[in-house]
Every structure is written in structure tokens, then in C-alpha cells.
């Protein structure tokens, strides 16, 4: 129970698309509070396109991540296109050539994706962005592994940390993106990207856990 056979796991990406579509209105509503109210629209547009490109089965996970990344980059623009786009492209290229996904490879993939995302977006933890979900979630995953947890348990740790990370954005003042200009007015509501990132990481973790062998 500590790895996932990648050839069968492309369905995870379809599950990501599902959860984004199901939360389209909610994500836009959060974005509407301090952003421009389109985060759900943007995300669901890109993820639906990717799901359509993948078809029912989803194929291998590496290829599915690459398709998702390509589709986001080519299909939605805005900030989310390049940020989530390169993140998933990196996940795909890191996994590419591997037969199975274990905790070490998963961590490496997320770190690679995170690096691109930060290179491109220049945001850091505390700026009230999706990084406030992603970074602590990844940290929690690494810490669990370092503490001896198996892949499944580490994914559970990541799920919990993603949620805490997302909620941490509520008290933050936005330092980057549209909301930044609101200053203190941006405090008190969740960040939309942190919310979508939490949905993605939790769904990804759950999907991988169900596929653990």
C-alpha cells in the first residue's frame, strides 16, 4: 500500500475537473469578494477542456497531468493559466517515464511544480494566494514522510494541511494579485486560489489513496 500504478491513474485528473466544476460558483463567489469574481469560471473552463481532451478513461497519470497543464496554458490565460498550467506540466514531466508513483516521486513532482509557480508568480507564503495552501500542504507531506508515514498516511497529512492552509488566508491581507490593492479591506475572506488549490490537492490525494496498491 505505498505506491500508485501510473498507467491506470489518469482518472485522477478527471476527478480534479469534477471537483472544480462542482465548485465553480463557490470559487467565483469567493473571488468576487476581493477579486473580480471569475476564478470559478476560469478554472472550470480550463479543467472542462482538459477533461474533454482526456476522454472518459484518462489514460496514464503523467500524460493526463501534461494534458491538463497544456490545456490550462493554452486555454484559460489570466494568471491561473500559466500558474496552474506550469504546475501541472511539471507534475507530468516529473512523472513521465515512471511506472509507479511513490511518496518520494510525488514530493519531487510537487516541489518541481511549486518552483515553476514561484518563479513565474513571485509570490510567497503569507501573500494570500494559492501558495498559502500549496506550501504548507507540501511541507506536511514531507514532514509525514520524514516521520515515517507511508504514502497514504502522508497524503492524509497533506489533505489536512491544505485545509488549514486555505483557512489561514482568511486572516491575511493580500499582497499580490487583484486583491492586493484592497489592503486591509482584503482581510476577512478566503483567497479564491487558495480555495481551488485546496480542492485540487485534497481531490488528488483522495484519488491517489483510492488507487494505492
Amino acid at each position, binding site marked *: 500500500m505505498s505506491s500508485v500504478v501510473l498507467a491506470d491513474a489518469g482518472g485522477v485528473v478527471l476527478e480534479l475537473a469534477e471537483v472544480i466544476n462542482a465548485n465553480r460558483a463557490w470559487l467565483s463567489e469567493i473571488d468576487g469578494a476581493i477579486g473580480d469574481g471569475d476564478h470559478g469560471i476560469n478554472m472550470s*473552463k480550463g479543467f472542462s477542456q482538459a477533461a474533454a481532451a482526456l476522454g472518459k478513461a484518462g489514460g496514464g497519470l503523467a500524460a493526463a497531468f501534461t494534458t491538463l497543464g497544456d490545456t490550462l496554458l493554452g486555454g484559460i490565460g*489570466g494568471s491561473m493559466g500559466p500558474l496552474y498550467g506550469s504546475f501541472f506540466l511539471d507534475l507530468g514531466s516529473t512523472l513521465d517515464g515512471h511506472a509507479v508513483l511513490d511518496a518520494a516521486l510525488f514530493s519531487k513532482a510537487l516541489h518541481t511544480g511549486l518552483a515553476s509557480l514561484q518563479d513565474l508568480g513571485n509570490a510567497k507564503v503569507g501573500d494570500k494566494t494559492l501558495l498559502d495552501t500549496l506550501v504548507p500542504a507540501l511541507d506536511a507531506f514531507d514532514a509525514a514522510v520524514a516521520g515515517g508515514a507511508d504514502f497514504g498516511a502522508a497524503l492524509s497529512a497533506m489533505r489536512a494541511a491544505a485545509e488549514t492552509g486555505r483557512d489561514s488566508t482568511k486572516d491575511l491581507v493580500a499582497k499580490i494579485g487583484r486583491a492586493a490593492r484592497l489592503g486591509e479591506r482584503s482581510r476577512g475572506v478566503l483567497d479564491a486560489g487558495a480555495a481551488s488549490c485546496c480542492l485540487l490537492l485534497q481531490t488528488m490525494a483522495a484519488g491517489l489513496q483510492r488507487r494505492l496498491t
Partner: protein
Amino acid sequence: MNRIINNPDEVVEDALRGYLRAHPDILAATDNPRVLRERNAPRAGKVGVVTGGGSGHEPAFLGYIGENLIDAVAIGEIFSSPTAKSFHDAFVAADGGRGVACLYGNYAGDNMNVKMAIRQAAAHGLTVKTVVANDDVPSAPKDQREKRRGVAGEILMWKVGGAKATEGADLDGVIATAQKAIDNTRSIGIGLSACTIPAAGKPNFSIADGMMEVGIGHHGEPGIEVGPIRPARELADLMLDTVLPDLPFAPGDNVAVLVSGLGATPVMELYILYDHIAEVLSSHDISIKHHFVGNYFTSLEMMGVTLTLMKLDDELDRLLAAPAHSIGMTRIAR
């Protein structure tokens, strides 16, 4: 939301069909449905001039495609940066063999997508250089000019860059002149009402009756002050008091003035404002050599106005005067 649309998620596609149908004398489609080019682009031996940005600002951006202006435009969703792929495809559509100048506005999404597109273009040997417009004074203090948004000043940058490319300048020459253009340009906007992105269905900010937001951005980004609307002549003072000292503009300067409505403000009000602006500039001994009054860079159906001033040298003056023909701006040779 009382709008003339079909599926709110497809307003951009639907509008582009109409633009292409209405303006075959100016515009042509490309393989990428989100990239339009000037119908004779690419022009061999000419530096390609590209811009791009979110939709909902019409006539910006595609309305400035034209001879002596922009060669190709990447088109995003409403108020959202075009994709990296679209920027890249616009570079290709504009490339006449002497490289491409990408003249765009300072927004996070655009910065990222342009950056990725340039990497992609470099991978197949196409050189793209950029000028990032940051003319919006209220969006950051002067010592953080690199953080300022690009607003209607982009239009003057495009006019200058496009004319320079037509004159035969090389890529560095076009970039240097466009950079000079924007470095000498300052803008400020005042918002008087909100707007609604069709796919969102309701406004994502609000301006109360009788109130104004000074320094508002082109997507409703908050400004520096919310207060009761003042008479037009005081608005002119307020705008000039922000813009003039920032460059600074000085007595004896020649300038171009652009007063653009944000969409729903009746055009007659832009002329009321322009009259006061011209009066104040003249009292400062600043001469208007070029002026534009109208809906040049809008934000859907927002009410409000932007003022843009560009300080001219002989080159900028000459390039602004060059004839041009596009949906958004026509300059006739005189």
C-alpha cells in the same frame, strides 16, 4: 444584467466573429481563434508590433490593429490575460523577419503569459522584446513605478511604436521609442459606476450613487480615494494635480492628451472634462499638440473617465501625427 449576448461564456468568440465580418478591410483571422492580425501582416522586413490583453476594453485591444499601428493582437477572456499560446501565436502572426515588439500593459497575468510565450518563441528562433506600459499613476508610488498598471497610455504607446516600425526601425529602435513613449506618459482614472462581467452576472464591486472612485483601474481595481463626485472642473484639477507633478510636466512642454470614457459615460461629458483640462494645461503653459476625446479604452459599461498625458519630443510628435487607420482610431494625413 441587461446585455446583448448569447452564452455569457462565449461573448468573446461571438464578438470576434462580428469584428471579423465587419472589418475585412482591416482585420484577418489566424489559425488561433484568439489571435487577430492586420490583414497584410506579417509585412516582410518590418518589425512586428503585438499587443494583447483581456476583452471588455473595446476598442482596445483589437481596435488598434491597423496599418501603422498594431500587427497582431492576442485576445483574452473578459478582463483576463490571453493565454501564453495566444501571445506566442500573435508573435508569429506579426513576425516579418525582423523580430517582434510586444507592447502590453503591466498586469500579473499578462506578464506571466508573455514571459512564457517569449520562451516558446525563443525556442524556434523568434526574438521578441517587450515594453510594459505602467502609466497609471495612482496604482503605485513613483518610486515603485514598475508596479503601476498600464491603462489608456498604452494606446499612445501603440501609435508611436506602430509608426516607428513602419518607418523601418529595427527591433531595438522600436522598443526604445515605445519605451520612451510610455516613460513620458502618465494616466489617472475616475470610476463612477461598476460593471458586470457577463459570465459573472453581477458587478464585483460597487460605487454608490453620487460617489466616485479616484484612481480606479480598468477592471474596477480600487483607487486611492472614494468620495462624493465633484463638478467636472474640479475633477479636471484633481486629475491634473495627480498626473502633472508625477513626470513632472513643466511649462513649455508639448503634450498629447487622451480623454477616454470607461464605456457608459455620455461622450458629451468627456468633452466637458476636456474643455477644463485644456484650460488648465494652457494656464500651465503646456501646449496640446495632439488630443483624443472619446471611448478609446473602456471597461465594459463602467461609467467614468481616464486622462492620459504624454510629454512629446519631436519624434513622439511626428509618430503620433502619422496617418493610421483602425477600428478605434483613424488619423488622416493632412
